[in-house]
């Protein structure tokens, strides 16, 4: 395998509704900022790929309009996934393994605010049995949360603790959207949105964009002082039909982690970025990844409050900002940016797609000297 690293990450502050900018106006600034960090010109990029979704924007081939931001004329080598940008990064990583190009630009954008997001997300369900029910994303997540609570492996206080920790972390993240600090008891006093989920257990609706630059081997070393090397990356998927899954477990995350080098025997991580749009999903993911959900502190939720585990979601995670198609790539970018800044040497980053954690991607990142 060829050594490939994340060498730059840029994002827009997520907002509830961006009425000023259309898609290319979201993408152009993050692409420009990421390339500037990497010290590259648009013409230097070997491979370009984006992640976005026409259903969010309500028009076909919407990614073509955003392409102007990467200066596609004269023609460039370019691809697109109708998925979160984390999967675009996976394709770029695979593309760099071919060995003929050394750099790749990945960007993702999502204006979740243009349509009625819960209705839009119904369209990702199978068209015969689930979509006609109008089963929206929050209701499906609530079914999953109920199953988890009934399993006895979590209670509503643990969910609120995840949300409270997310908000504390997000207060220090200028790109997060939900940044007001709230304590667990305060959150638990709120009414249910869709029981057993309260508003704080659910992600905000967000508009946003981000961009990542990958570089291989010596090119990465030449461009930046501390590349965040991708030591392993894998993604796995579970059945489309929700009834065929145990919603309280995430075997696809466990499998992807094992293949990415983050299995049960893996060396410890300094920080972890999990793409858990709903609070209970963080607990399911931590279970699948072997990350203790009890770090010895009172709330059992690690937040750098004296526990032994890695810092979980120091960015605030998807509960703090959830631009669709962007939030997964943001987890990889956030983890890499912290390693590149010297805040740790080894990180795990995760992205999810589909209802109730259907598809999961796990990436292990290290800076030089990071392997114990």
């Amino acid at each position, binding site marked *: 395998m060829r050594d490939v690293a994340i060498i730059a990450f840029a994002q827009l502050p997520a907002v509830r509704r*961006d*009425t*000023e*900018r*259309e*898609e*290319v*106006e979201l*993408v*152009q600034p993050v*692409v*420009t900022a990421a390339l500037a960090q990497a010290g590259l010109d*648009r013409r230097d990029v070997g491979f370009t790929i984006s992640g976005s979704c026409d*259903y969010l*924007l*309500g*028009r076909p081939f919407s990614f073509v309009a955003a*392409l*102007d*931001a*990467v*200066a*596609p*004329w*004269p023609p460039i080598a370019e691809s697109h996934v109708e998925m979160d940008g984390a999967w675009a990064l996976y394709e770029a990583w695979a593309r760099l393994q071919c060995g003929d190009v050394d750099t790749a630009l990945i960007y993702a954008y999502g*204006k979740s605010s*243009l*349509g*009625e997001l819960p*209705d*839009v997300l119904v*369209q990702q369900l199978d*068209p*015969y049995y689930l*979509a*006609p029910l109008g089963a929206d994303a929050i209701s499906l997540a609530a079914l999953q949360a109920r199953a988890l609570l009934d399993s006895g492996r979590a209670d509503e206080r643990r969910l609120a603790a995840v949300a409270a920790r997310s908000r504390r972390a997000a207060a220090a993240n200028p790109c997060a959207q939900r940044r007001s600090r709230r304590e667990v008891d305060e959150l638990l006093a709120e009414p249910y949105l869709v029981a057993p989920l309260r508003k704080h257990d659910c992600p905000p609706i967000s508009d946003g964009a981000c961009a990542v630059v990958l570089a291989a081997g010596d090119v990465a070393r030449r461009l930046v002082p501390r590349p965040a090397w991708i030591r392993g990356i894998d993604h796995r998927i579970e059945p489309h039909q929700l009834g065929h899954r145990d919603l309280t477990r995430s075997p696809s995350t466990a499998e992807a982690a094992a293949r990415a080098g983050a299995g049960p025997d893996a060396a410890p991580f300094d920080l972890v970025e999990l793409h858990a749009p709903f609070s209970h999903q963080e607990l399911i993911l931590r279970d699948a990844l072997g990350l203790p959900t009890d770090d010895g502190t009172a709330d059992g939720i690690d937040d750098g409050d004296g526990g032994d585990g890695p810092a979980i979601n120091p960015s605030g995670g998807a509960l703090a900002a959830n631009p669709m198609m962007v939030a997964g790539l943001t987890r990889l970018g956030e983890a890499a940016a912290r390693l590149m800044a010297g805040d740790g040497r080894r990180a795990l980053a995760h992205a999810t797609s589909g209802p109730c954690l259907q598809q999961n991607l796990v990436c292990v990142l290290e800076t030089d000297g990071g392997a114990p």
Partner: protein
Amino acid sequence: MSDDAPDAAATAAPVTMVPSHVRLTYTVTAGRHLSSYLRALADRRIVGGRCPVCTKVYLPARGACPTCGVPADQPVEVADRGTVTTFCVIRIPFEAAPFPPPYVAVAILLDGADMPIFHLVRGIAPEEARMGMRVQARWVADDQLGPTLASIRWFELSGEPDAAYETYANHL
């Protein structure tokens, strides 16, 4: 099930269709660049954006120049007359057609712009349509102006001689 009982699945009529109606509603954002173009139309002006790198004038202004990757946002007012770079004659009626066919749709390179816009030409027989025709905008009345290209009803021949091919060859 006994051996001689008919298999219900084998004898029932196949399900060949499941009606599944989908209706999604969106509120689309025009964006800063397109908005500048639309607002000018409400003011009876045509405003594009110049790329600060390659100096091309895009109509409308664009969030990024596809050659340079930077916003093409330096405001440039262009003329409401220009040269037809290509055309077609619509002969098929359809519900949203603005006129009974036949009528002529054209790409017009407005004087001062580097990108043509698309519009309609009235006042000529379809067989007279040709590349290089010089045309002039026919605006709606003041009280009908709005942030839309419909502020220009159509284009008409300006009376100038046809433009030489070389003057628009790089803008096709």
